[in-house]
């Protein structure tokens, strides 16, 4: 304590800069991780949150949801095969008309609101409670100024709907999702007849003639670009993490190595290695924790300043986990040099006594 503190006081610039580097590195890790989490989330969160075990697609679709087309005849056939555990599903990408402004891109998820099941509601009604022309929208739509009970108008069909409820974690290809009932009719948006992408099914797996049945996980994996996107985000995050952890622990290793002479003096006057190590560990812990605190504060501040459409996602578990790992590895870096000092004679550490 005595040593650690006095060294800080006498070398303010050196340790100030070191703390600054620590803050910058941790900030970078937090920021990039949050951004890539956010982007990965916005890409496909809605898909992961679909309420089903199995997805049934047309055979020609080869497992890709948006290539699949099922008409009313298919639906009837499937209903006969599957019974009550069945629920149709269609994705339609369109836009909302905003007065005097650009349109807002949205994705309509057309479902049978009676069958689909409950989604997480943050405000207003759930799917089952919807009346004519009422919809449930993702919260991200609020960023564009929409509120509960607002009337929205589809820019291509001029269909008018009322937002009766808000759900969360339903973003599809960076667009807010709007759950609509089949009675509103977006399933016939592209063609004159009803066309669905899939039928959802809860129950045991079956072999269906003319149709493909696959799990939701498989369906997500076959979204075009999904694994490429998630894979590159993952790689970016892991590389950043490994490099920054490595750089910061090597930094502490080198900084501690520079104190070899000093450790020699301390050993010569009888200090045990643990006494020296304690003081170094205290310093490393102090700088790392300070860096952790200030960088998460800076991260929080930046998030407040950023435009709301920027998707950032970072859990406190990740902050704490990252901090813990940095702490351990920085200490390890410092201990590595102490260990080297512990092994040699005090005199060698001091250098020749000339």
């Amino acid at each position, binding site marked *: 304590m*005595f*040593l650690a503190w*006095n*060294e800080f*006081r*006498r*070398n303010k610039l050196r340790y100030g800069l070191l703390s600054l580097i620590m803050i910058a590195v941790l900030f970078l890790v937090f920021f990039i991780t949050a951004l890539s989490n956010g982007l990965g989330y916005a890409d496909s969160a809605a898909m992961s949150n679909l309420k089903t075990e199995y997805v049934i697609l047309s055979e020609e679709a080869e497992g890709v949801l948006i290539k699949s087309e099922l008409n009313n005849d298919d639906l009837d056939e499937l209903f006969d095969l599957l019974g009550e555990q069945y629920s149709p599903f269609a994705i339609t990408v369109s836009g909302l008309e905003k007065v005097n402004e650009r349109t807002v891109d949205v994705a309509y998820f057309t479902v049978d609101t009676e069958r689909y099941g409950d989604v997480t509601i943050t405000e207003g009604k759930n799917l089952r409670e919807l009346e004519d022309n009422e919809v449930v929208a993702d919260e991200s739509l609020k960023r564009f100024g929409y509120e509960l009970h607002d009337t929205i108008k589809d820019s291509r069909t001029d269909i008018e709907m009322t937002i009766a409820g808000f759900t969360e974690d339903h973003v599809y290809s960076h667009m807010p999702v709007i759950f609509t009932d089949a009675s509103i009719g977006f399933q016939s948006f592209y063609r004159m007849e009803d066309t669905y992408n899939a039928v959802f099914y809860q129950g045991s797996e079956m072999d269906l003639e003319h149709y493909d049945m696959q799990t939701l996980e498989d369906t997500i994996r076959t979204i075009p670009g999904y694994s490429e996107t998630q894979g590159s985000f993952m790689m970016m995050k892991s590389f950043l993490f490994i490099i920054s952890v490595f750089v910061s622990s090597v930094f502490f290793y080198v900084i501690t190595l520079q104190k070899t002479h*000093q450790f020699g*003096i*301390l*050993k*010569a*006057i*009888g*200090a*045990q*290695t643990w*006494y020296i190590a304690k003081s170094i560990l205290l310093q490393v812990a102090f700088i790392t924790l300070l860096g952790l605190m200030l960088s998460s504060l800076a991260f929080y501040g930046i998030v407040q300043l950023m435009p709301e459409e920027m998707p950032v996602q970072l859990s406190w578990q990740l902050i704490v986990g990252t901090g813990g790992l940095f702490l351990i590895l920085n200490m390890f870096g410092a201990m590595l040099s102490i260990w080297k000092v512990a092994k040699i*004679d*005090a*005199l060698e550490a*001091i250098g020749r*006594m*000339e």
Partner: protein
Amino acid sequence: MMGRSILEIKHVTKDFGDGNSTIRVLKNINLTVKQGEFIAVVGPSGSGKSTLLSVIGALLTPTEGDILIDQEVVHLQSKKRFNQLRAGKIGFIFQSDNLIPYLNVSGQLKLVNQIAKNNKSTGQKRANELLSRLDLLQRRNNYPAELSGGEKQRVAIARAFMNDPSIILADEPTASLDSVRGRKVVEMISQEVKSRNKAAIMVTHDERMLDLCDKVYVMKDGCLARE
């Protein structure tokens, strides 16, 4: 008064190996230092004087032979006991000053007290006493970088006495001091040795200090002989 031996050196040799050739810097050294004895070692530079002090002070391990401090064989001890020996029984005064750069003068002494795990208030008292005796009271809040060479050396001396050691090992302690201050320092070492029944070995080049010592040894080519 002179009775118990504090330090016994038995057949000590020390080799330094650089690459494939080794040089024998210390050759069969035998020496006994008793309580109350103040010993001087003189000799040409490069003869092994500093090496001898380092071996005695457990900063280097001897290649052969034994060193006993207060009847304990030093190099057979555990690492921990080794440090305790250094912290409690040996006071080092190095050839060049070796102060901790970021501690002020009082801090240097406080550190020794802390490492030796001695009582805080007695340490404080002892530090004040040492600083006033060495004319350092005015400089107590200064850092090594702000001190002159002589002042730094006096701090190193104060530090060596701080832990109340059984034996003081001083490597040319007066080299950077003027002759008045130098003599005062040697007198102080002598006084400490006599009044508290300690032992001291001082390597020196200064012939004028030798009258303050009880015995004078000459180191030559790694061999130690009584003058």
